[in-house]
């Protein structure tokens, strides 16, 4: 039968009716919607058994104690470790540490720089050969320099021992708070490492030091804050903060004393003056001279120099005097370049308040014994000033090294006058060696600066390295051997074991923290206040710029050695970065004075450098001050941070602190012009 048009239509009609009576349409509709929950380009969950590895974060400068959650051996989370002496919460950078293992910018194998400047992958054998050859050339007479970005690790002993074997003492730490503090403590005649017992204090005045965000063992500090501030109740511990910007610490402090950047020491002396007038005294031998010095810092004088409100200053002095266990913590508001003066002045205040060697006050903590015989101990290492040395090299006052080894340090990004550093260091490294990341290696954190107790925490690998990386300690030991030097330890693990023993810790049993706390303190005897040094050191000339510069440090955007982790872009505040543009903050009065409004594009410039940013009006900034978020402006790393914003270090130039010779870069100023 031939099918005519009408017949065909009927066939279609029948087929349609039939299909509707079968699962074809309905099942397909349903399956398509199931498919839409299950798209192949969306990653799947992978189930497995949970396990937890207690360790300590080597990524976060606070050395926060954490637990790593693994699912069938895959690390998935960094979790809080409430039992850890450096834990009790997460920092915004440690929280992202697991994901950083897979950062697109992670190095996967050793790299060598070729003649045209490009990096090519090589094997570890080639790399070690190159390294040995390079180091051979740098033997003898300070021709080798070592720069370490790890302030608390035993790894430094291996590097410095290698340098010593090579005849060099040019070993440096990246700048931080510990160096100026060590200098100040030494000047005062203190022994060991200065510690701040925040946990037991009932009144904490932080001058500059951003104690709840970047200063010291932050998570430990914040845990003390947590305990001292019962939920919704009147605080048992009061916090006061003095600094140019209402930063994270200031936001929750009971008092914010706004001061000009770089005037921390002046503020401390002003408080000392008020306290002495109110009857405070120090047992120090040079107290009389100190009193005379402090007397120069009348409230009017302090107000003029720091810009602080005299009434608020007096109120804080009164609160300090009334407190049972007051504690003053002084430092730089962005964690570096502050010089010894603020710490000296701050410690002097503690002395006036009777806080020396007292619960909830200042503690002298013993340094750990060296475990690598030829190494430089922490005390000696802290005395070397990288920025000053680079300055000398640049000006020809010191011999340029033949070889420099950088360990977890990014000086071209993180040092003041980054552009000049780049020139001094001849651009870039010839050899780049990947080390396992913090969660992939054995390492340690020994009593971070600021900690009120001796804490020794072991970092334990949660997983094997994901890339072709080798532990730096073992590489150094091997290289030394090839260079004919015996460092006295067979493996890095032995060094760690010895260090743990030196701290009285034993990690033979599995523990919930892999950390050890010791009550060991050194006596604090015959402390001097050093008004002689202070009077010189505070003689910092006010910058000859219309606007002072206040860098603002926050951990969420990374540290001097790592860029913004992938998860952290969302934590960057809206008016901090927009697209690739950085926003800087100033208060309404300053903006009006400069004829600026929110979103205006401006150029910040000074002899050190210049860049263009936009204006955000934020009232929590000192008058005539521009607050610049630090930690942006990376030229390397991945799409999460590269090319975003500007690096504030480019506007900072280091000078020498009179009286101590330390490099300082907290008193910078800028010109502002509409761009």
């Amino acid at each position, binding site marked *: 039968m031939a099918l005519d048009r009408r017949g065909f239509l009927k066939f279609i009609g029948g087929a349609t009716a039939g299909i509707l009576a079968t699962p074809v349409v309905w099942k397909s509709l349903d399956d398509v*919607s199931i498919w839409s929950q299950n798209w192949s380009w969306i990653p799947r969950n992978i189930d497995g058994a949970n396990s937890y590895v207690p360790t300590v974060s080597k990524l976060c400068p606070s050395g926060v104690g954490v637990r790593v959650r693994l699912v069938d051996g895959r690390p998935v989370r960094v979790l809080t470790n409430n039992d850890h002496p450096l834990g009790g919460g997460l920092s915004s950078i440690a929280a992202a540490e697991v994901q950083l293992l897979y950062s697109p910018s992670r190095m996967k194998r050793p790299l060598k720089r070729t003649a045209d400047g490009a990096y090519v992958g090589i094997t570890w054998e080639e790399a070690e050969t190159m390294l040995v050859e390079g180091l051979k050339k740098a033997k003898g007479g300070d021709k080798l320099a070592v720069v370490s970005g790890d302030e608390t690790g035993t790894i430094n002993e291996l590097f410095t021992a290698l340098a010593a074997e090579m005849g060099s003492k040019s070993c440096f730490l990246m700048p931080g708070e510990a160096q100026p503090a060590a200098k100040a403590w030494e000047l005062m005649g203190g022994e060991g490492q200065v510690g701040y017992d925040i946990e037991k204090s009932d009144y904490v005045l932080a001058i500059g030091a951003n104690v709840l965000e970047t200063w010291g063992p932050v998570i430990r500090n914040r845990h003390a804050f947590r305990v001292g501030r019962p939920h919704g109740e009147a605080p048992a511990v009061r916090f006061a903060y003095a600094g140019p910007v209402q930063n994270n610490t200031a936001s929750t402090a009971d008092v914010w004393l706004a001061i000009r950047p770089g005037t921390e020491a002046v503020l401390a002396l002003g408080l000392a003056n008020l306290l002495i007038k109110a009857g405070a005294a120090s047992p120090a031998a040079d107290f009389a001279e100190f009193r005379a010095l402090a007397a120069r810092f009348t409230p009017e004088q302090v107000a003029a120099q720091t810009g602080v409100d005299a009434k608020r200053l007096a109120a804080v002095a009164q609160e300090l005097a009334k407190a049972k266990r007051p504690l003053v913590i002084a430092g730089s508001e962005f964690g570096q370049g502050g010089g010894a003066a603020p710490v000296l002045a701050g410690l002097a205040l503690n002395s006036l308040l009777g806080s020396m060697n007292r619960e909830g006050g200042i503690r002298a903590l013993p340094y750990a014994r060296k475990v690598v015989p030829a190494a430089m101990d922490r005390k000696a290492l802290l005395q070397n000033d990288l920025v000053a040395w680079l300055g000398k090299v640049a000006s020809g006052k010191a011999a340029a090294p033949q070889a420099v080894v950088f360990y977890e340090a990014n000086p071209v990004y993180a040092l003041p006058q980054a552009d000049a550093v780049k020139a001094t260091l001849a651009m870039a490294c010839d050899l780049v060696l990947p080390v396992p990341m913090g969660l992939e290696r054995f390492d340690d954190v020994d009593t971070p600066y600021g900690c009120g107790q001796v804490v020794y925490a072991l970092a334990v690998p949660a997983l094997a390295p994901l890339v072709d990386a080798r532990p730096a300690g073992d590489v150094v030991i091997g290289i030394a051997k090839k260079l004919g030097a015996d460092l006295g330890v067979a493996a890095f693990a032995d060094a760690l074991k010895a260090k743990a023993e030196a701290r009285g810790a034993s990690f033979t049993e599995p523990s919930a923290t892999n950390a050890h706390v010791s009550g060991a303190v050194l006596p604090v005897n015959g402390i001097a206040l050093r008004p002689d040094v202070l009077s010189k050191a505070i003689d910092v000339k006010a910058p000859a710029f219309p606007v002072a510069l206040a860098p603002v440090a926050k951990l969420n955007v990374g540290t001097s050695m790592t860029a913004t982790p992938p998860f952290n872009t969302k934590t960057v505040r809206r008016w901090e970065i927009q697209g690739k543009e950085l926003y800087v903050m100033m208060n309404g009065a300053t903006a009006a004075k400069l004829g600026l409004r929110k979103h205006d594009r401006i150029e910040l410039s000074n002899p050190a450098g210049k860049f263009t940013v936009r204006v955000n009006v934020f009232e929590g900034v000192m008058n005539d001050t521009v607050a610049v978020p630090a930690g942006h402006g990376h030229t390397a790393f991945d799409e999460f941070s590269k090319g975003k914003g500007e690096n504030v270090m480019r506007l900072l130039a280091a000078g020498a602190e009179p009286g101590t010779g330390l490099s300082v870069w907290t008193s910078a100023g800028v010109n502002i012009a509409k761009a």
Partner: protein
Amino acid sequence: MDKNYDLPIDAALFPEGCTRCSLSKFLVWIAAVMAVFGWGLYAAFRVLSEGLGVTGLDDYFGFGLWITFDLAVIALGAGAFFTGLLRYILNIDPLKNIINLTVIVGFLCYSGAMLVLVLDIGQPLRAWFGYWHANVHSMLTEVIFCITCYCLVLIIEYVPLILEQKQLNRNKLVHAIAHNFHLMMPLFAGIGAFLSTFHQGSLGGMYGVLFARPYIARDGFFIWPWTFFLYVLSAVGSGPVFTVLVCTIMEKMSGKRLVTWEIKSLMGKIAGTMLTVYMVFKLADTWAWANDILPRSGLTFDQLFYGWIYGKWLLWAELFACGVLPAIILITPSLRNNRTLFYTAAILDCIGVTINRYVMTVQALAAPVMPFDSWETYAPNWAEWGASAMIMAYAALILSLSYRYLPVFPQEVKLNK
């Protein structure tokens, strides 16, 4: 009959006794329409393949141009149900001369809206969940069901018109079907009127129920949410004149008279009457909102406006320039019969209801509710404009084809003798 070679090639398909432009001229016009359509198609492709991130929408403005567009065309398409209601149920006979056009416009508005909705939801493959997993508490469920049903009704109303196409109608079966459909029209008009009233209302209700959005929440008085009635009234107050405007545009483009002035004026009168009723309630609503709902929410009238983009001018324009003013013109016979004033009023009326749908959608979302939140602004991007333009192009296409080949305007032959 000898073939007349002066006539366009497709003349055999034209409605009985009507003349049309040449096919090539028509095709040029269609090509232009298709170009716009293609742009929209590209936008739709990008949206469907990459996700809605292609659009200018964001987490503050989950609703934007598309929802505004949908609401506006559905309101303006209300001419279909309301005219149908008057024509078939209340037997206002002269409306038969424009009823076909209202049906087509209505069909275009509803089917267009549904097309946009497919783009606008994030998971179009799950669109059928709206029927299968319906949440009876959601106003949107009402909207989904009513729009779908009413769109089907409009298709049923449109089909006989297609079947009446001269060549198709020669087929006896087709002819019979068309005829029988016509006989059933009052029934469908009734169903349509019910459905349409209901979902115009639920569209309004959709907003009125958002009790945590003081800009649009309407509660505490009479039936909650009373935006239900405002939406119905504003739709019937503007839909009829929109049809007239479409008709007039078609007249201008074709150079023919399609509908007598009396019919247009009658449509204007109907819309004007409804608009007047609407304005009374809308003004009362605005007053109640400003003096009851806002203070209860801790807000003041001024706080609900921002800068130029969400300024008070929008409200004044909606209420007075595009509300009270056209209402007065359209209900006053002397003013209404001045053609310039009539068309001005018609346009203002349509603009007014569009502004209403826009502010209820966009400004409502822009207005911060948390005191520390900020006003944000929204501007649709090319993808949203493109997809909207695609619907306009689709409408232009259907209207052009319908006009060229279907007996849409019963008066055309007489008026163009």
